[in-house]
């Protein structure tokens, strides 16, 4: 039985979703703990999220 490529892409997207969710959650925790570092945390969060998102796009467009 052959599994269609789109299933793999879907799995990747699920992984990406979990990853970005975790980044967001951790960033929230960090901001709650250190509100004065909000700016730095936000920047780092966005960069990490953007990089992971790139993988998701790669998977989606590879199909």
């Amino acid at each position: 039985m052959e599994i269609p490529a789109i299933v793999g892409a879907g799995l990747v997207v699920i992984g990406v979703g979990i990853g970005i969710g975790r980044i967001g959650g951790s960033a929230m925790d960090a901001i709650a703990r250190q509100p004065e570092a909000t700016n730095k945390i936000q920047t780092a969060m966005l960069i990490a999220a953007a990089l992971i998102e790139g993988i998701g796009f790669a998977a989606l467009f590879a199909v």
Partner: protein
Amino acid sequence: MVIRQVIMQFTRALFFLAVLVLIQPVFLTASEHSEHASDSTESTQIVYQEPAQDGMSMKQEIKAHIQHHLQDGHDFHLYTDTETNTHVGFPLLVILLDDGVQVFSSSRFHHGESVAESNGNFYALHHGKVYKTDAAGTFEMRDGHVHNEKPLDFSITKNVFSIMAFALMLILLFTGAARSYKKSLVPSGSAKFLEPLIIFVRDEIAIPNIGEKHYKRFMSYLLTVFFFIWLVNLFGLTPLGINVTNSISVTFALAVMTFVITQFSGKKEYWKHIFWMPGVPVPMKILLAPIELLGVFIKPFALLIRLYANITAGHIVLMSLIGLMFIFHSWIGSTLSFGLSVFISFIELLVAALQAYIFTMLTALYFGSAVAEHEDH
């Protein structure tokens, strides 16, 4: 001075026109729903004078409309009145590199309904692309694809025209803001609104990512990219149907520029980091070099795909929700999808700014990694 006045009046008039057009679609979407979509017919040989097919289902119509909305076009098409089959818009210049340079007005295509003749060559449109055909406009269709010859198309398409308009807008806006500084150092007029944004790009994007020492060189590019993408994204949300950032060529061009600037300003440390990562054992170095080299290309690729995909996805979702209003025949469903589409519109407003910010910030990050002088591990 007089010229400036005239230009100011002209732009003001343009803005009023834009606002008028913006308000229209609220009523327009209702009458727009029978966009002709003869594109969807697939036979081995089709000729374009075919009349629009009737009896297409609502879903297909909406799909065709969304596809049309996302596509670039050879004329500036605002909307079609299906009752009278009149197109509202204006033609643009078609420039083809085929048999010398062919320049003619896109009105010769009659919105893809007829074959254009130029210097004895015949061209016709299929899915918004120009193909070389015979005088009758015959397409060679094989397994769903047109196999006619494709001339190199350097036309002033809708997107190119929009980019020109946006560039003009940005120039007028920011030179106007710059002029207000000549009188006094305190900003006045539009500068009052734009200055915090410029300072935001400088203090939140450029300086933290590139560093105090080198950021000045990249400021022009970063600011232009930021404001260009933002403005374009915002206009993409208006029902004018201008979607520049959801065309892959545009984001590709932006990413290529970022790539070239990054590589060209790469310092010794940057290259060393790619080819011979300091501080790791030799086998790791050999393993890391191809990965890092690949990363050099993947980074701008992710940049272009991200912008393209975000904006395209936003448009598709928004338009599908608007389409749902017509598919639901009950007032509950239509109201619900209306509310949802309003909500998504607001989200898209946020996304428009966010994507501009992310693109600029990642660009700055890449520049920063290129000019970094010492490793900060």
